[in-house]
């Protein structure tokens, strides 16, 4: 595995291996000294063409915890603002000889294009409405820790599926791990052809009790102006998951940022059934595991084969 672009490129065994690795990094993050020297001397570039809090900070911190040098470039305030093309920006950053480039871009396929232009490992941190594989992996990791296995579990993805790269990568990842996926939302926000993924489609929360896990998507206010929903008020009445709709054994997830009182009730966010803060914590361990898997493949440059996470100060 050289790049992480699309969940469809992974098999179940690769995901299990990666998540086992994330388990060991989760253990590292509980130590007093949270840093390991694994990627010492290597450079990781993060290149964000869209705003991001969770993903950019957790990739950055993950790389730093692995002792890599990190260069963070954001589209605003950089040469991108001056009209530089993606290709030229990436070629410029390649001069630093990065081991990995983590990219978020508003267009589908942007991460994949980079693989033709640079020798570095490319990590897709979100490309348009296409894929967000590290999110899907951290969600699977979070659920695996809580449930043991996703096999046979019933997962509902509720909300704006049409515009969601999280939905697209999570449907694939949940199914890969053996879960049954249902998507639910108003028909204007369910993309045509979604059944071809093998998931079920529901236009109401009436059967929500079937779900073991309810994965909520952010309802973006600007969608209202585009007439995808008549009003946020009506949307909330029809599709908000709140304490009245939530059964006692159901778990709730959300990729963030949440709109309290729109797609999710405030009390649900703060309840024990919410895995939202677990997801954020998982993000760090899973992204460390992703960087580790991609950058320490055997047979790589200089023939170094790091054995695994070793705390700084201990012999590697």
């Amino acid at each position, binding site marked *: 595995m050289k790049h992480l672009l699309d969940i469809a490129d992974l098999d179940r065994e690769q995901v299990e291996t990666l998540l086992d690795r994330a388990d060991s990094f989760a253990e590292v993050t509980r130590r007093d000294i949270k840093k390991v020297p694994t990627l010492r001397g290597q450079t990781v570039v993060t290149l964000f063409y869209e705003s991001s809090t969770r993903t950019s900070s957790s990739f950055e911190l993950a790389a730093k915890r692995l002792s890599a040098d990190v260069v963070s470039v954001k589209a605003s305030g950089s040469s991108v603002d001056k009209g530089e*093309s993606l290709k030229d920006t990436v070629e410029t950053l390649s001069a630093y000889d990065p081991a990995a480039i983590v990219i978020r871009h508003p267009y*589908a*396929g942007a991460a994949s294009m980079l693989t033709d232009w640079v020798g570095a490992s490319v990590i897709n941190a979100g490309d348009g*409405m*296409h894929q967000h594989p590290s999110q899907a992996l951290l969600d699977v990791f979070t659920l695996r820790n809580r449930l043991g296995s996703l096999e046979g579990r019933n997962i509902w993805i509720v909300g704006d599926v049409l515009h969601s790269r999280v939905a*697209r990568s999570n449907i694939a990842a949940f199914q890969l791990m053996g879960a049954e996926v249902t998507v639910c939302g108003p028909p204007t926000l369910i*993309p*045509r052809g979604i059944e071809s993924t093998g998931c079920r489609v529901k236009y109401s929360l009436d059967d929500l009790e079937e779900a073991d896990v309810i994965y909520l998507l952010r309802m973006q206010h600007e969608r209202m102006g585009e007439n995808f929903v008549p009003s946020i008020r009506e949307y909330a009445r029809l599709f908000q998951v709140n304490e009245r709709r939530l059964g006692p054994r159901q778990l709730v997830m959300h990729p963030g940022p949440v709109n309290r009182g729109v797609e999710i009730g405030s009390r649900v966010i703060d309840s024990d059934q919410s895995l939202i803060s677990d997801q954020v914590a998982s993000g760090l361990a899973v992204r460390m595991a992703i960087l580790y898997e991609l950058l320490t493949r055997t047979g790589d440059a200089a023939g170094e084969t790091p054995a695994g996470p070793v705390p700084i100060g201990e012999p590697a």
Partner: protein
Amino acid sequence: MNRAPEEVVEQLPEPMVQRPGPDASLLIRQAKVLDPVAGLDGTFDILVEDGRIAELADAGSLKTGNGMEVIEADGLHVFPAFFDPHVHLRTPGQEHKEDLETGTRAAAAGGYAGILLMANTSPPVSSPADISALRHQAETEASVPVGFMATVTRDMKGTELTDMSELREAGAVGFTDDGLPITDPGIMRKALQYQRMCGGTIALHEEDPDLSAGGVMHEGDISMALGLRGVPSISESVMISRDAAIAGYEGGRIQVQHLSATESIEAVRRAKKEGVQISAEVTPHHLCLTDEAVRSLDANRHKMNPPLRTENDRQALIEALKDGTIDCIATDHAPHAPHEKEVPYEAAMMGVTGLETAFSSVYTELVKPGIISLALLIEKLGCGGIPFDIEPFTLKAGSTANLCLIDLEAEWVVGEDGYESRSHNSWCEGERLNGRVLMTVANGQIAYRLRSFSMGVA
């Protein structure tokens, strides 16, 4: 003296313009000839003298002399040259993509001896002066005859008609806002009313922009998987139905460009049955590719408007070509520079080049496997001028020489030796194709020879 409108029409300039050049004289021996117009199918010797087909005789019967160029064409095919009613050569304003010289070279390399140029240039071709200037420029740059279309609405803004009569008098072959649909049905209706006076078929890019809603590929399973905004098939068909109804009501004549979807074919079929004067084009790429190709997210090869659709649509297009619902194959040759294409799929410009590969691609994909006949392909590549009152070329003795010499056995990799076009956004880039154009004679002049193809002199 007052003139009746019919007389004005008779005064119209010659529709096609070409750079003057020496008339070809050559003898092609033992060529396999297929000419659907003349009903020829057999092996002949063809004598071209002073740019005309002087004689078409039994194979081996014509002798050489006078230092005339001789082509030993045993095993090679000669067809009447092709005519493409839908080409973008980007002059004026976007010559970094293509111009009259490179574009006509690309046409000649594809076996074309006539092409109609779309008017969505920068600025668009909206005034009689634009037409006159372009015709003048073509007289020094065009190696194959070109005809110019003018826009239906001023600067393609969709709100006011152009001076259609004067544009016709200046030489506009027809009218089109291609690249954009004419969204206002009232404007569409008035253009068709005006057409009764000044002639000029209106060629239509049929798309409802509100249904396309910023889509970049066909709406379906694949757009869903890729997270790309989809263009539904009905975006095309509802506009065809609308315009067919208006054309029927006004007795107007319309050409539907680049048909892509099953629903659109049905709309054209229905209109034809009802007696509407409607004709339709299909592109080689819609005949050969489906939205599966878009999975590569290679905008250079696979992003165009209308988008590549499903296998069902592709099969329906092939059927419609066979049953005559679709009248001709037109490339919609749309060159773009690398920096406009080597960007993420959603950001890339729409359009692919097609002149140099039209014959070879459809021959490889549809004729060789036996899906359509060679004769049908030659006919559909040749008859694109008919909706604009331009007769297909023929090899009958006495005709002006418009022919292409093709080696059906030749295999070539597209782009391996570069392109005649200035742009490289061929949808066939890197594909291995069968059938190669060796030489094209356009309006009596030798317009193209494949570099590696040399000939003897007797």
